[in-house]
């Protein structure tokens, strides 16, 4: 619904612009005054940090600042790509980003469709309310709960031992192979209900006549989902997918930072953690900034590619 609204708004802005005249400026002086202040704020907090990117091309020394530090070209980037840790960190970020993207998309869509199929309206409402709950909990709390549940005496080990899947409790946080699935599960647990909101709205917007027609044609529940619901929410799915592709590299900080430990470092560290570690803790601002720039560039490239693909297939686009 809203996506359609947005499109309309976009078209409307193509109206003839109002001429800039003194009369008009005087009329809008209040608006201009406030937007001036807002732009100053935006420049300071969003655009000024971009000038810090210069640091990545310098042998940056805090005492010299960005104006007096020596320029060294791409040396820091070369150093970055010769660092095995950084390569591993890229791999981790991409892997977890993609797993989370796919897992959370599939779960949200499945949950929205199944919830919509519930016949008991009261139950539907209650389940939906419950499903939002984890979204409001911070990652600190979610990771705390995970630590508890997956610990040696936690509920997961207790169940696994009880049903004879394993003989002795497993320390899930000590083995690298469990880390990515745990992160994916945590993301699903926290956000499924929340992500489903938008799909539920899209499903509600589907014309009920379509369902009736399908039912008369003898379509069962599955067929109705496959031929009415899914095509109905396809535009929403594509738009959200596009928006989130650019975020793949952003998908890794809090949870990895909070869940990671020395034993699983090789799979848990992401670009953001690398930046934090080298930049803030070790004080090597140049290398931290270079890693940050790399991340931003890849994100932008991903968005552009996703947009191109969508354009090519004549689907909905972001811009």
């Amino acid at each position, binding site marked *: 619904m809203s996506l359609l609204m947005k499109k309309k708004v976009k078209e409307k802005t193509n109206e003839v612009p109002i001429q800039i005249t003194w009369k008009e400026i005087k009329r809008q002086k209040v608006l201009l005054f406030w*937007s001036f202040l807002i732009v100053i704020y935006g420049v300071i907090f969003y655009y*000024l940090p971009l000038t810090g990117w210069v640091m990545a091309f310098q042998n940056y020394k805090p005492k010299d600042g960005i104006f007096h530090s020596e320029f060294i070209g791409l040396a820091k980037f070369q150093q970055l790509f010769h660092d095995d840790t950084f390569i591993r960190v890229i791999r981790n970020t991409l892997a977890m980003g993609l797993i989370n993207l796919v897992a959370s998309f599939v779960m949200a869509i499945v*949950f929205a469709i199944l919830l919509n199929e519930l016949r008991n309206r009261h139950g539907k409402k209650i389940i939906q309310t419950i499903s939002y709950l984890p979204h409001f909990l911070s990652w600190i*709390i979610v990771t705390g709960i995970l630590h508890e549940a997956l610990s040696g005496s936690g509920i997961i080990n207790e169940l696994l031992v009880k049903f004879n899947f394993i003989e002795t409790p497993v320390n899930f946080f000590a083995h690298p192979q469990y880390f990515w699935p745990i992160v994916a599960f945590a993301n699903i647990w926290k956000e499924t209900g929340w992500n489903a909101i938008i799909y539920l709205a899209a499903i509600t917007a589907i014309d009920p006549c379509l369902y009736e027609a399908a039912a008369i044609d003898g379509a069962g529940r599955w067929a109705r989902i496959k031929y009415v619901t899914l095509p109905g929410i396809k535009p929403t799915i594509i738009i959200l997918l596009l928006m989130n592709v650019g975020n793949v590299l952003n998908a890794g900080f809090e949870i990895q930072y909070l869940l990671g430990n020395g034993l699983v470092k090789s799979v848990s560290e992401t670009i953001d953690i690398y930046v934090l570690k080298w*930049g803030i803790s070790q004080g090597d601002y140049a290398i931290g900034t270079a890693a*940050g720039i790399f991340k931003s560039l890849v994100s932008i490239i991903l968005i552009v590619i996703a947009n191109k693909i969508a354009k090519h297939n004549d689907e909905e686009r972001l811009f």
Partner: protein
Amino acid sequence: MKLFNKNKKKTSLGDKIFYLCNGIFMIAFVVITLYPVLNTLVISFNDGTDALRGGIHLWPRKWSIKNYQTVLTKDNLVTGAYITVARTIIGTLLALITNALLAFIVSRKRFLFKKQLSLFWVVTMYVNGGLIPTFLLFKGLGLTNSFGVYVIPGMLSAFNMLVIRTFMNGIPDSLEESAQLDGAGYMTIFIRIISPLCKPVYATVALFVAVGQWNSWFDAMIYNRMRSDLTTLQYELMKLLSSVTNQGGSVENLKNAAGAVTPTSVRAAATIVTILPIIMLYPFLQKYFVTGMTLGGVKE
């Protein structure tokens, strides 16, 4: 006729299986979602040393309110609670006022730089300086080691602005025009005419910002590490959690634990105290965040 009947019976059996599977799925979903939270609640009301024996699921074995007594008398947690409440209230108010004002400006049909100003903010959604330059900037501005770093930097955000703008675009222009005929200035129109109509979307954005403020810990850790008087609830909780996970309920912990309180049980109580306000409020605010999500068309 016969064929039709057979067909109908077949689909209804399929439907029955479908409903059964769906029901099982939903029950599993609810259990997995609620159990960890309920279990934390139960542990928080259970005697600490007793809880270490394990096997406590949905009902306390040995009731105790000592955990809560410990939590509520810990100085750092109390300070954290005050700061968290303060940043949530101040941060939400600031964010709401500024985002609403910006959205109002860019949604005026006649505004001269409407397009440019929107673009200026939308760009910030995709490009940002990154952690290090931001850190240095805050340091340069004197925002580190101050309360301001909690409420000023994230105040205006393109996402929240767009949510409000979409809503405002749906308000008929005639309202503005007739008010102008009556001699109202833009500020009067904003405060007296548009804002009252925008109450639902304001509630939505306020909720988004408030939850973000309540749950944030990273800024406390990065920018205000040296100021224990500016700590936040979540950051204190994090310190509590990581200290426990690192030591893993060792004998040392047991010795340190005064009486019947252990780090695990204190942590459970602190978690419950932290999430209680949110759990009590969010069910009543559902319609607002559902509106917001569909208006924005974006995930957070």
